[in-house]
């Protein structure tokens, strides 16, 4: 396994990435999309370690610094609303992997991007959502209500990102979507209303709840180990008989 850092020339400026590439022939490729912090290595290098685990199984894994963060400091754009930087970066990646099944992994806010990417790309062979956060980014009025609404007796309801939910519904007709979430994660409560929005498609979404733990931010050793083991097991399952153990 070798890590190959790169600076991708995109219309938004240089996007910093790191690709973990297996030494043996490629069985699949994967894109890992982190949360709103935009840092591709994750808490305690968790995303780096997961990428290296998957490369050990035969998967080339792309991790991306979002515009304005880390190696993408010179790039412009908000990953919440501007997805062109990702489409161009993914194009660079897929030219180098050649035709191969694509696994899409998203954590927290990255789950929204993962749903959109999985909807747009060809050959998607599975989607993994780690503590998915599919709520819409609140505008200024809603943000103010969330902060101060209690004082005037107004409690705004949860609003999901309609693009991400629609994309997820379409993706579920094409491939498997697996979700891992901690029993103590706040966004666990979102899964029921998301399921209602998805209708029958929700039955095809496989949800794993890790007992007694909060996965979001991965602040505990148990949370880090649970996510790492789950992601590796999920990738092995997707690779099936092709997996290198």
């Amino acid at each position, binding site marked *: 396994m070798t*890590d190959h850092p790169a*600076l991708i020339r995109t219309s938004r400026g240089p996007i910093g990435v790191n690709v973990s590439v297996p030494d043996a022939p490629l069985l699949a490729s994967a894109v890992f999309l982190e949360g709103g*912090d935009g840092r591709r290595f994750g808490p305690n290098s968790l995303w780096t370690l997961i990428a290296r685990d998957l490369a050990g199984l035969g998967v080339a894994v792309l991790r991306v610094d979002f515009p304005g963060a880390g190696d993408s400091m010179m790039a412009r754009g908000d990953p919440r609303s501007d997805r062109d930087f990702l489409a161009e970066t993914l194009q660079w990646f897929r030219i180098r992997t050649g035709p191969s099944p694509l696994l899409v992994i998203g954590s927290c806010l990255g789950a929204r991007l993962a749903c959109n990417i999985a909807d747009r790309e060809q050959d998607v062979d599975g989607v993994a959502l780690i503590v998915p956060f599919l709520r819409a980014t609140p505008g200024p009025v809603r943000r103010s209500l969330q902060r101060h609404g209690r004082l005037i007796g107004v409690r705004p309801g949860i609003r999901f990102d309609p693009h991400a939910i629609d994309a997820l519904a379409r993706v579920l007709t094409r491939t498997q979507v697996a979700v891992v979430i901690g029993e103590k994660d706040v966004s666990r409560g979102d899964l029921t209303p998301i399921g209602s929005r998805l209708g029958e498609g929700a039955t095809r979404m496989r949800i794993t709840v890790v007992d007694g733990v*909060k996965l979001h931010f991965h602040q505990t050793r148990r949370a880090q180990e649970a996510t790492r083991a789950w992601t590796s097991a999920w990738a092995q399952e997707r690779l099936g008989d092709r997996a290198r153990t």
Partner: protein
Amino acid sequence: MDLASAHAQPSWSDSAEWSGDGIRRSVFYFGSPGSLLYGSMYAAEAPRSGLGAVICPSWGFEVASQQNLGHSLGLRLAGLGGAALVFHPPGHGDSEGDPEEVSMETLASAASEAVAEARARAPAWTWVLAGVRLGAAVAALAAEAAGADLVLAIQPAFDPPVFLEELTRAARRTALVGANASSLVFGHVLPQTLIDSCNRADIGAALAGMEDRRAVVRFERPAGVWIPGGFEDLVVHGEWSPRDSEGLVGRASAWLSEQETRKR
């Protein structure tokens, strides 16, 4: 162009460099196999300043939360005609290494390696050390071995045991309000090797006798930051926050440019 190169498949390593807006960027690994370190370089396409700064990050969660400060400073220095190397410490970010074996010695050794790598890749610049928070202490410890005759400390944590104590206390406070009761410090293992090495680190002694130039760039709040002797103290108005470090970046890059002018 021959046929072979005309049909060459793009490779993973053909995008390790980028240039535009007068700035040359490169990303790479350096050091020894098994303990490779991740490096990200900013350099002016047309050097106008003779100084390049290796920016030593802090430790643990602060490597992540303050990484944009390092990249902003690197970009600013390159824009002023200089250069900078931002790197990930052992066991952090995209670098290799076991986070449970990290100590002040391994961090200082990584900083020295980074300076050697920067000199080899960009010999047009005189390479000096800058450090953020605990990285300032690391830069001070590494200065002599790295042959750096200038140390710039940014919002420094020059008392490593106090730094660890404050960070641990903050992590515990966060755990109390969340569901994250954990022995980790913001998700990072605090190894005994780091605790022990922080207890024996003597920043003042490391710099004693060195004929270097030194400065601290810090916000005026929090007050009471301990600074060893011999440092020029450059205070920026306001309160320290890793999310708003623009004041530090501006003052730090200006000071480094002034040093180059003085040298000339």
